[in-house]
């Protein structure tokens, strides 16, 4: 694929790593927000190429991991109904709820289907008019344009047997929450390139100014990440609190205007609970009143649910960059991708899964070093 092999070239990666080493005169802690970036970093050993001065910590950017248990349990309830076809992106199927997961519901006879695009749900709904197709609309700003379009189209095409469980989260409020925490030690951010592809990066400028940190919009290939770190270290060394764009081949300052407009038509901003982290003000989307008819929770009268979190799982601390996966006593012993205790072990974008799959059973540095 074009610009994939080139951006994984080991020789170029080492040239960039050497440039970072020349820039860094003291210790810097930089957080990559997005789980997709964490995956690349661990898979290609990007962190191991960096000089000892520069440490990468992993952020909360895995939508599967932060989807609150309440909404997973509600989805499990809905998925067991005979009159429902429950559709989801594949990564949600093994995420543990209080007592079960979607894969188990499916094995017990529930009609749970994986869709590639939320538009596929509308085709299913038209083909099965006697049942309700419920879509688990999760994700960051990256899946919002697709999910908003499915809901908008459902209204336009008068598809009434379609509903959504909305669990959309937003990146800038999470960055702000991490920086405001007394435990914070992050000095610079690599912002998620594909989130900014949709939203642009206007919103990051006041964040950088308010918290006195540089933010570099960064892509997903090894060279993107190394260049993002290089630019971030240059800004840190110069004491500049600017927003820089490493990923200009994809990200424009204004983002994608058409996608932004449609998201604003269907969704409005709301407070949202992040699994393992807690409620972050104005950090998610809910349906606007005009689209309330598509809300699955009210259609099936599911609002109050009792949930039980595993008390061995430290994924909340991992999602906030306070601990790394190998510091969890359950990691690789009682918690594995086959038997996950927490969502960060399930998702391909979860930090625990990335460490497990690429054989990082120990952390070379702990966060308290």
């Amino acid at each position, binding site marked *: 694929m074009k610009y994939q092999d080139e951006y994984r070239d080991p020789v170029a990666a080492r*040239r960039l790593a050497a440039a970072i080493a020349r820039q860094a005169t003291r210790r810097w802690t930089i957080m990559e927000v997005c789980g997709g970036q964490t*995956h690349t970093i661990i898979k290609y050993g990007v962190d191991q190429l960096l000089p000892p001065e520069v440490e990468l910590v992993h952020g909360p950017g895995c939508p599967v991991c932060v989807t609150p248990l309440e909404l997973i349990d509600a989805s499990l309830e809905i998925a067991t109904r005979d009159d429902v076809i429950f559709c989801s992106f594949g990564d949600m199927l093994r995420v543990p709820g209080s007592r079960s997961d979607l894969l188990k519901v499916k094995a017990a006879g529930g009609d749970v289907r994986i869709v590639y*695009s939320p538009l596929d749900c509308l085709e299913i709904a038209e083909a099965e008019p006697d049942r309700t197709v419920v879509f688990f609309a999760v994700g*960051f700003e990256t899946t919002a344009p697709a999910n908003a379009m499915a809901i908008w189209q459902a209204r336009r095409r008068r598809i009434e047997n379609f509903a959504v469980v909305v669990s959309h989260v937003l990146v800038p409020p999470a960055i702000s929450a991490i920086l405001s925490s007394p435990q914070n030690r992050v000095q610079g951010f690599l912002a998620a390139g594909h989130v900014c592809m949709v939203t642009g990066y206007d919103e990051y400028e006041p964040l950088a100014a308010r918290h006195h940190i540089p933010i570099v919009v960064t892509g997903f290939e090894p*060279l993107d990440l190394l260049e993002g770190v290089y630019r971030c270290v240059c800004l840190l060394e110069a004491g500049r609190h600017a927003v820089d764009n490493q990923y200009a081949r994809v990200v424009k300052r204004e983002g994608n205007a058409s996608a932004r407009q449609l998201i604003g038509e269907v969704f409005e901003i709301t407070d949202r609970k992040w699994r393992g982290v807690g409620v972050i003000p104005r950090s998610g989307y809910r349906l606007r009143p005009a689209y309330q008819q598509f809300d699955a929770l009210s259609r099936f009268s599911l609002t109050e649910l009792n949930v039980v979190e595993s008390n061995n799982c430290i994924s909340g601390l991992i999602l906030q960059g306070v601990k790394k996966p190998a510091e969890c006593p359950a990691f690789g012993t009682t918690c594995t991708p086959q038997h996950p205790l927490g969502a960060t072990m399930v998702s391909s974008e979860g930090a625990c899964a990335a460490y497990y799959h690429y054989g990082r059973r120990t952390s070379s540095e702990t966060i308290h070093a």
Partner: protein
Amino acid sequence: MCLGIPGKLTETFAEHDMPMGRVDFGGVFKNICLAHTPQALPGQYVIVHAGFALQVVDEDEATRIFSLLDELDELTELDGSPSPNPGADQGGLG
């Protein structure tokens, strides 16, 4: 699910009044909604999330990193510091 995948747009068509395209992901073809990138032309690369193309890849910007690398190496020579050994095969990116 946040991982956008680049693919090459090969043809365009319409479905339910929406602009759609056939996209080649290294030999695997999928129908992708172009409602948010109606400007995309066959032959261009697009970034796709959950069945939607969300941006056209800017080819000039895509090659910029390679001139940056050359500039960095020139700076190293001016510095007199040793340049990294391009043949060495240690750590990372294995």
